[in-house]
């Protein structure tokens, strides 16, 4: 039974539960709702919830865990002879999955019965070409062990599904029957229902925590996996980045970090003065008309997707910088460069810096300005000598947040900065960043057990730690500052 049909069935049962529960509550007081503790609707809703939620929950958990258990059980079926030299168990397991999917497709297309599939033999029946016939491509000839494992995988996952279906249905029916039997005039259906709903609300707020947990776990696990294949010392301290698909790669993070920091530095060099000055102008100088016009215009920059900035860097800024600056000055001939990515990213960050600084400048108490004016200071003197020092912690926080944005930005550097890992000072040279390499190591057909692919997770973890550190620091600074004036 497919998951969709099962879900629909359970939901239908829940719907019936609502109607029947309501009816039963009403009939228990012979149609006079005033004698019920809770409104009849609540009786119906409590039946529906107790029918649907536990069953769906069990289904979800089962679907998440079943592949894990199966994987382990099937892996024990594979003998060392089934794993060719230079391959790994994970690769053979993916073959097993593909063959199993192919067998499913065969069963669906050619109408093979279960016995027929059981009789298939790797050495006799030409499985590879038959699988190719249903659109499943398998690399080499299929070994008998792999075929056996695939058959077992199919059978066991089918059994698993069946057990899950039965269990979910059983739970739904039990929940239905149990909550129907509970209905009496005195039954506090509303309280039960409300407690259930609050539990669901708590569950929803757990999703954020689970997401963080998922990010951390997946990054940490795969990174550990990577460090088993590749020495951590080389990753952190090697000065070359040179992945080879045949092995023997140099995977040093330092050139990537250098590119990341260089691009971010240029971006901040653009964004911080411009954003800050724009914020000061809009907060202190601009008339109401200018403000209502210019502020949304600058904020539109923040709403533009980064892919648009990436394209802008690729087709406009990059060639312009190359033709007008880099080539005349003899600094390089590459359209993608640190400068291109940095400038465009700086433009992207202007609204980010300016709106954060704007909030902070507006939070400086008016009395401080008035005091400064009273002493005869001009506006710019007030800004430079009173407002900025008072707002400094907040502005530092804003800059830190902008830096974290810059470090984590992907599309602009993928399209603007280039792909060559290099330690260089020339800003018109193409360099690459951590995010670019995450993308390039994880896209395309890569086998999942090689250090060249897994390094992306180590890069991701570095990125995550870096940005998280900056964010926490920024929040801390901002919070500290807010307390000063509250």
């Amino acid at each position, binding site marked *: 039974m497919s998951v969709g049909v099962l879900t629909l069935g359970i939901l239908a049962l829940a719907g019936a539960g609502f109607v029947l529960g309501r009816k039963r509550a009403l009939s228990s007081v012979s149609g006079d709702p005033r004698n019920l503790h809770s409104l009849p609707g609540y009786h119906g809703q409590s039946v529906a919830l107790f029918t649907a939620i536990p069953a769906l929950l069990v289904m979800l958990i089962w679907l998440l865990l079943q592949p894990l258990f199966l994987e382990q059980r099937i892996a024990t079926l594979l003998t060392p002879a089934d794993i060719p030299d230079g391959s790994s168990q994970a690769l053979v397991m993916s073959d097993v999955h593909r063959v199993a999917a192919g067998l499913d497709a065969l069963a669906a297309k050619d109408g093979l019965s279960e016995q027929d599939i059981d009789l298939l033999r790797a050495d006799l029946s030409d499985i590879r070409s038959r699988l190719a016939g249903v659109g499943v491509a398998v690399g080499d000839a299929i070994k008998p062990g792999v075929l056996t494992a695939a058959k077992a995988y199919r059978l066991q996952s089918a059994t698993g599904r069946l057990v899950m279906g039965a269990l979910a249905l059983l739970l739904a029916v039990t929940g239905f029957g149990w909550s129907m039997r509970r209905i009496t005039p005195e039954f506090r259906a509303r309280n039960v229902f409300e407690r259930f709903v609050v539990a669901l609300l708590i569950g*929803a707020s757990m999703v954020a925590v689970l997401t963080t947990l998922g990010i951390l776990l997946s990054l940490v696990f795969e990174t550990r996996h990577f460090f088993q294949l590749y020495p951590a010392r080389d990753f952190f301290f090697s000065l070359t980045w040179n992945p080879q698909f045949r092995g023997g790669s140099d995977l040093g993070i330092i050139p990537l970090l250098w590119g990341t920091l260089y691009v971010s530095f240029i971006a901040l060099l653009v964004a911080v003065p411009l954003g800050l000055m724009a914020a000061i102008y809009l907060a202190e100088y601009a008339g109401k008309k200018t403000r209502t016009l210019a502020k949304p215009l600058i904020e539109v920059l923040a709403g533009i997707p980064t892919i648009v900035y990436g394209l802008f860097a690729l087709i406009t800024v990059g060639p312009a910088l190359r033709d007008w600056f880099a080539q005349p000055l003899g600094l390089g001939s590459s359209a993608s460069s640190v400068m291109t990515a940095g400038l465009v990213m700086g433009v992207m960050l202007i609204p980010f810096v300016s709106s954060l600084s704007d909030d902070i400048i507006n939070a400086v108490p008016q009395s401080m300005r008035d005091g400064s004016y009273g002493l005869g200071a001009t506006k710019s003197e007030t800004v430079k000598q009173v407002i900025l020092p008072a707002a400094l912690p907040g502005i530092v926080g804003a800059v830190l947040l902008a830096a974290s944005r810059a470090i984590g930005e992907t599309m602009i550097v993928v*399209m603007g900065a280039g792909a060559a890992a290099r330690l260089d000072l020339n800003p018109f040279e193409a360099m690459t960043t951590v995010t670019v390499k*995450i993308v390039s190591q994880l896209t395309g057909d890569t086998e999942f057990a090689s250090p060249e692919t897994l390094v992306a997770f180590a890069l991701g973890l570095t990125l995550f730690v870096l940005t998280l550190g900056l964010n926490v620091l920024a929040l801390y600074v901002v919070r500290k500052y807010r307390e000063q004036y509250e």
Partner: protein
Amino acid sequence: MTLSSTNPPKSLFAVDARTRKRNAAEARFRLYGLIAVGIGVLALIVLLTSVLGNGLGAFRQTFLQLPIALDAAKLDPSGNRDGEAMKKVTTIGYGKVIQTALIAEISQRGIATEGVSAKDIFGLVSKEAPAQLRDQVLANPGLIGQTITFKGLANGRVDGFFKGRVSMESAALDSNISPAQLVLAQQMRDAGMISVSFNPAFIFGSDASELRPESAGLGVAILGSAYMMLIVLALALPIGVAASIYLEEFAPQNKWTDLIEVNISNLAAVPSIVFGILGLAVFINFMGLPQSAPIVGGLVLTLMTLPTIIISTRASLKSVPPSIRDAALGIGASKLQSIFHHVLPLAMPGILTGTIIGLAQALGETAPLLLIGMVAFVREYPGAPPDGFFEPASALPVQVYNFTQRADPAFVERASGAIIVLLVFLVVMNTIAIILRRRFERRW
């Protein structure tokens, strides 16, 4: 010490040197601010004009129009108009038909073709045109034996020539087109055989291979993006609203609640690519969901959008005055009833505004989708939901990235055109959000 200084008394109207300096510094500072604002606005204008200037051409395409006699002997050798048998005639066969018809039409109109071989004349036609004709005939076998007016795509270089992307000089260096061919194309345009007109296939058609930029379209990408937005809406809105209600109305002030709140604000600042890694590791490798499927993209974008929705929902729940809750509780409503029957409906405009803005963000997000296999070349439209959620699709921003990775310069125009489509969607969504806020949000 006396108060009188050595300086002679001065008129108030004569500005002294120091004041002048201070005033000049003031004016300079003000100018800096104005320049900063100006640069910001200028950057926006340059960005938009660059994209619009490059991309508007993608909506118009060069077409060839010519009468073609569909010869039964060539296109349906079996002669019984049987669809299966007719499929045996490949696009090469149809290409030959187009070639003969094209040469005949050119000579009939008296256009000189010296120095241009038959192969080069056919080179003006897109490699996609035979497939177009074939599809047209297979869809309607009754056409065989008739003479139809066929409107097919012209080659990308010819298209580029009429849009100013390809010049005689560049054609001389180009192995795909020669200046003589362009001269011929210009003559054909003057004779009315070639025209540039609006191309709906750019919006509704599917992607095409590297060699035929003229037929690449955004249909699959738009559909994939729409599917993902549906998933995000269906998951992120209820989960986000439920989480905000708990945090705003029920959660006790304790460490655990603090943890959740810090978590949410941190998630909002996690780089989007990290969500892509999460999607790859958890949804694809661990849960075994298919690659490049809208369901995975939708789930990843849901997790990314949740913090935005939670933050805006909490703000709008907070803005509903406590008197509403007190009044509901006072007449005997339970806490849950007061929230669901009174507070939530009043906060709804704000929640919807936040949701639309979150969706707009998700629509433009590219980096995480690259990691979950959305970059794959997908020509087939995904099926109807819910099965379609599990079939390979592309997404609008990823399609832009895909176009930019291809060698033919004609794809730059396509990429910019795709950006225009994306921006139109974003503008529409943000406008709806602004209208919602203006019309329905209540100030208390």
